[in-house]
């Protein structure tokens, strides 16, 4: 039986990955929108994104729109695969409890 992914299972990171998972392909989402969805502070979200980026689960791009800085986050292919495996593991745990 495969182990749960410690990086993904942390509650805020789990929500980050879930929010990114419904975006098609490698479509990015802006940091501010992700913050609203996940319900985290700037610093908290930034720290968890760094953890996910170090695991190569998300890709972060920074640019400017006019003079305003913009940070966007997208799920990588590896991140999508890891998240799918994590969800499957969670379902297995539930199924094991039901049988």
């Amino acid at each position, binding site marked *: 039986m495969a182990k749960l992914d410690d990086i993904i*299972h942390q509650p805020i990171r789990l929500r980050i990955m879930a929010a990114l998972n419904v975006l098609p392909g490698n479509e990015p989402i802006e940091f501010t929108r992700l913050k609203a969805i996940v319900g985290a502070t700037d610093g908290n979200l930034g720290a968890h994104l760094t953890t996910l980026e170090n695991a190569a689960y998300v890709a972060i791009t920074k640019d400017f729109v006019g003079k305003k800085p913009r940070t966007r986050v997208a799920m990588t292919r590896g991140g999508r695969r890891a998240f799918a495996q994590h969800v499957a593991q969670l379902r297995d745990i539930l199924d094991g409890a039901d049988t």
Partner: protein
Amino acid sequence: MQVSPQEAAQALQAIASTENRSATLRHYRGAAPHLMLWGLLWAVGYGLTEVMPARANAIWAVIVVAGIAAGTLIMFRTAGRSDTWRFAAVWATLVVFCAASFAVMPPSDGRQVAAFIPLVIAATYVTAGIWFGSRYVVAGLAVAALTLGGFFLLREYFLLWMAVVGGGALLLAGFWLSRA
């Protein structure tokens, strides 16, 4: 890492609710420019129709073609190819439905046409909202209420009402969705 079935259920529930919220906000973000586009087009279309009622058919032919073309371009730039075709198919359905309705029940007054089409659009928003997010329902109900209010209470100024209030409501709804 040891996780109990109860913790697994909680995690799956958190995933489902977050995915749902993310998908809804993505829908809103995608729909916002379309509402703003049609808010502007309504303002122009109804405004010109008020000034040149005899040219209503030509005005609205240009407005509808311009709106569908601009909307398709927005879809092409922001969504996938399959979504663009669905978008075009929805518009084709609405145009054919309205044309068929007018063939079956010919309007006796231009204002009936001017009210019927926004009501169909409003019904489309409410229907979309039942599936994809409550803000569409609010936008659809607002457009329907403003259309019916103008039609029955402000008959002399109905076109002007739709240009300013109807178009303005769509613009505001688009802005509201973009800020969600």
